[in-house]
């Protein structure tokens, strides 16, 4: 029997040397390009202010992302970050606008989104008075804080138990009828309630002329969406919220640009980024739902790893929101819907 001799391709001897060079080059270039990276020191976070579009900026590094709309009427904020970073946040605002902080809008009740409410509101100014004109005596310290009434009720303890925040941090102008409409700095603003999503008090904010959406924690780029079941969150609401955001966005060209979206955490995004995230959440929901129909237990569902293809990007095994917690929240949410 003739022994068949396999001759490796002529390129084989060169592969190792080429790969060594490639890997070395890639490693050094990647290390060298770290010059623009965010300060990774959690004890001394670097606050960054990034222009988004039109009048709108994003303040990042303060806990949750903060949206700043700046113009001749003053500064409008969506969320206020962590309580201990208020001075830095105000300093960041002053890099863009020296006008008073006029209005604060909260997207939810999370500490990293409302922590600065009291101190930043106190640093602001509000204009009150009747319909027929106003005078300088009607301007007083304190910017009003707008949020959905469910968020207001959770902060002031109306939902049971003690208030979770001091009264100075509570929304001063809760709304119930959605959308709530404002006009600030030459553009219309819609504050839209998204029921039972991250919590039961979520709002997204649409800046119509700047063409920017502040999504709050309904949409993040840093992990799976947090579904706070105890505070009225649900997977159905998250998906509805993401679809609502997609309805508001119009891409400029080839699904890029156009309407920008400021997530609760992470980088500035556009329609396609929200689309991929929506797809991911929907697919995971469908998988878990299918297993529930097949009478799988929660442990069996977790063992099946319904998020395996997304874990390397969004998952976490430790921290305040793990993959297991996300899967469990989706499961409980779906069980409740049945």
């Amino acid at each position, binding site marked *: 029997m003739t022994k068949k001799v*396999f001759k*490796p*391709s*002529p*390129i*084989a001897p*060169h*592969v190792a*040397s*080429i*790969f*060594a*060079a*490639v*890997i070395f*080059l*890639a490693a*050094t*270039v*990647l290390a*060298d*390009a770290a*010059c*623009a*990276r*965010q300060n990774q020191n959690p004890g001394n976070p670097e606050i*960054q202010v990034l222009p988004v579009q039109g009048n709108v900026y994003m303040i*990042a*590094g303060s806990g949750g992302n903060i949206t700043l709309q700046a113009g001749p009427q003053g500064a409008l904020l969506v969320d206020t970050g962590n309580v201990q970073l208020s001075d830095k946040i105000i300093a960041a605002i002053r890099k863009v606008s020296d006008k008073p902080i006029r209005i604060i809008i909260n997207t939810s009740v999370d500490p990293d989104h409302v922590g600065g409410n009291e101190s930043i509101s106190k640093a602001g100014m509000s204009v009150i008075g009747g319909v027929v004109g106003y005078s300088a005596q009607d301007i007083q310290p304190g910017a009003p804080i707008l949020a959905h009434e469910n968020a207001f009720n959770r902060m002031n303890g109306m939902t049971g138990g003690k208030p979770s925040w001091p009264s100075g941090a509570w929304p001063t102008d809760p709304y119930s009828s959605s959308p709530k409409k404002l006009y600030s700095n030459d553009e219309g603003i819609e504050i839209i309630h998204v029921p039972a999503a991250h919590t039961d008090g979520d709002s997204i904010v649409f800046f119509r002329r700047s063409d920017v959406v502040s999504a709050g924690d309904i949409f993040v780029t840093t992990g799976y969406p947090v579904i706070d079941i105890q505070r009225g969150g649900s997977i159905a609401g998250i*998906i509805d919220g993401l*679809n609502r955001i*997609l309805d508001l966005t119009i*891409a400029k*060209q*080839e*699904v*890029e*640009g156009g309407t*920008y979206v400021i997530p609760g955490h*992470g*980088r*500035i*995004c*556009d329609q*396609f*980024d929200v*689309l*991929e995230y*929506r*797809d991911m959440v929907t*697919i995971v929901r*469908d*998988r878990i739902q*299918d297993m529930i129909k097949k009478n799988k237990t929660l442990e069996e569902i977790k063992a*099946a790893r*319904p998020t*395996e*293809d997304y874990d*390397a*990007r969004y998952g976490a095994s430790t921290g305040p929101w793990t993959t297991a917690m996300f899967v469990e929240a989706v499961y409980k949410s779906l069980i409740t819907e049945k």
Partner: protein
Amino acid sequence: MKKTGLLGLLLLQGALANVSGFAQTPEGPPASEFSLSGNWFPLYNEDLPERGGGPELVDYLGLPITNGARQMALSWDPSRMTVEEHQCQVHVSPYINRSPTQLEFWEERDPETQRVIAIKLYVSNYQQTRTIWMDGRPHPSEYAPHTWMGFSTGKWEGAVLTVYTTHIKQGFVRRNGLPESDRATLIEHYIRYGNLMTHVSIVTDPVYLTEPLVKSEDFSLAEYTAISWTYSCEPVEEITGLPKNRVPHFLPGQNPFLKEFAERHGIPMQAVLGGAETMYPEYQLKLEQMLKTPAKK
């Protein structure tokens, strides 16, 4: 073989070069003697099935994909592309060079010093314009938006233009559903020799690749330009009556096309599901053994 040796030497030269040269002096790099300006046509002398008509479903051969990437691709239903917001999506910069109709390079220079500020690259398919900043500017904040083409900086290393790209959107590493994450970064070498150019790309994706993916394409300087330079895409309702906000996908274990490519071409399933070992020529020996030993039914 000579070309391979030259390629290896050029890459090694690049690796040993002072890479911190990306952070140039404020005046920018000196005007290079080399230029890529002009129109370039692709030469389809390698990887034609992937670059031309496109890959078949569940053909993951030759890619160093993670199991997560594999699972995502197996759940990907091609009908996803009928979703309105997906219809006009663009191939990301690490993938778009696989089959452009034409590339056009030109330089933007400081009018006073004539130093090259940026090299612009227009890719005819998907009508994408890349800017390769040559002035040493840093890459943007991690909070900055990502785009299809990403943010690129470049430098000449001898006759090789080396480009580093970050801030790339999520896309395909192969357009049969195999993903590339938005954490991927790209290093490219544009190597010109006369009227020919070799483009080598190294994609590093910490999410979906177990090791860097190296690909190459050749281009020829064109004596004429292509007729079609634009890409007009308008999303439409391709299939009426479907529910809004649907996300076509296959549930785990229910991909109806799972074995189609393998059976059509007589390739073992273990091979078509890809992985780093399928990239290397040594895998041919393993493949030979697999073909000798029929899979148990």
